[in-house]
């Protein structure tokens, strides 16, 4: 049943509206008709307490998350490839990574502030920490999953070391690396919201919802949360589409 998927969201919206009517306190449960106008005017700065329009805030958050995510990918993928290819380097890095990995990205906030002060660098650093480990671990896994026969075929067909890397190891590991990027981006997107709560930040979706709280504008908080959710969903959708288009061979190696 295709439409069954829509049933629960619709029931939830109706329930919400009923509850808002019963509670009758817009600070606790704002009614739908105070949230929807905000979502319908994403380009208008009039609904966001003078923090710039929803789109503007979203663009800034996406920019920040993109920056931290790209830096994380640029560092994690090469290290992951080296670790996947060389047991020696794996042993060298592995214990450190296992020690650092369980530390939640947000636990790095005070240190980030101490090192980079208030500003973009701190935010990017937190996002970097969030995205780094899933990308790294998946890259290592992906490189290790490259079949020995694939490498040997390349060797016997005259491939040089560099060609084996670009024509066999990378494409062979690509689906798993892509999964790492997808998971990493998801975590990065979670981190950006919290990172925008750092002092001295004055834009971004995370900032917007906290700012709205300070003014008791729960309807704006919820509208901001909806936008955060939808953007996360859309980006994940793009990742999945690319995966389906380019990496549909995964699991069908024969």
């Amino acid at each position, binding site marked *: 049943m295709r439409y069954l998927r829509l049933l629960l969201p619709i029931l939830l919206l109706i329930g919400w509206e009923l509850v808002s009517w019963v509670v009758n306190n817009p600070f606790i449960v704002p009614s739908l008709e105070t949230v929807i106008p905000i979502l319908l005017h994403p380009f208008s700065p009039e609904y966001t307490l003078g923090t710039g329009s929803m789109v503007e805030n979203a663009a800034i958050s996406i920019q920040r998350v993109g920056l931290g995510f790209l830096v994380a990918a640029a560092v994690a993928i090469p290290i992951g490839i080296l670790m996947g290819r060389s047991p020696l380097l794996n042993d060298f890095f592995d214990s450190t990574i296992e020690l650092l990995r369980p530390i939640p990205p947000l636990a790095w906030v005070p240190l980030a502030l101490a090192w980079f002060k208030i500003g973009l660098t701190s935010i990017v650093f937190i996002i970097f920490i969030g995205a780094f480990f899933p990308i790294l671990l998946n890259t290592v896994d992906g490189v290790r999953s490259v079949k020995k026969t694939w490498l040997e075929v390349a060797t016997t*067909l005259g491939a040089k070391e560099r060609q084996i890397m670009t024509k066999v190891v990378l494409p062979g590991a690509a689906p798993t690396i892509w999964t790492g990027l997808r998971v990493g981006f998801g975590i990065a997107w979670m981190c950006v919201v919290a990172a925008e709560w750092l002092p001295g930040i004055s834009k971004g979706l995370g900032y917007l919802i906290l700012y709205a709280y300070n003014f008791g504008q729960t309807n704006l908080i919820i509208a901001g949360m909806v936008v955060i959710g939808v953007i996360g969903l859309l980006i994940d959708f793009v990742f999945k589409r690319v995966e389906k288009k380019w990496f549909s061979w995964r699991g069908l190696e024969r």
Partner: protein
Amino acid sequence: MSLVLKGISKSFLGEGKAEVQALSHINLEVADGEFVSILGPSGCGKTTLLRIIAGLDHATGGSILLDGNRIEGPCPRMAMIFQEYSLYPWRTVLDNIAFGLEMKGMEKPRRRAKALEFLEMVGLVDFAENYPFELSGGMRQRVAVARALAIDPQILLMDEPFGALDAQTRNMLQRELLEIWEKTKKTVIFVTHSVDEAVFLSDRVVVLTARPGTIRDIVPINLPRPRERTGTDFARIRRYVLDHVEKTAFSSKV
């Protein structure tokens, strides 16, 4: 072209650091254009021997001479065909066949045109733009053969290439391989554990003993091709070779 195996031995450290002798003093000369099978029970080191010839493993004793020159590593004059899982699942059939040419730096239109010739030879032109997972096991091995042929090697090294196929497909591919061999005049070294396959295909059958692998006998098969599996001569030679193999299997159990 002449290929000479001189006193090839191979030992490795097994469990508990005990030295295991896999191959012992293998001497063999393969003539230009000859079809030689290496036959033996599993664990006799026949695949190891082939891998040493291909330059994928190193012998611990002896040497391999190709036209008088010692071979130390993978050599473009030989191409190896593996048992299975050797095609690159992210490449189309045509791009798989063109892989070796690409490694040599041949530009795209030329290598694709050339790959198409070999695709034609194995009768899969209609599948040029398909991916390996869309092909049956027999078709995939045809592609693997075409990919090896595409780099124009003098020697084809085949490691139980039809071992994973059903009996009918297997017989069909054996006949096709002989046609290709007659057409291209390649030298073939073919590893198999099937007596029937060895006798059907080869000019000579090299029977290996079980561990350590040594040459028990080299049986010339002087039957005209195409060979009839049901013929009395075929049955007689098959019986003879089978006796050899069984004896080696029994003697290794004692």
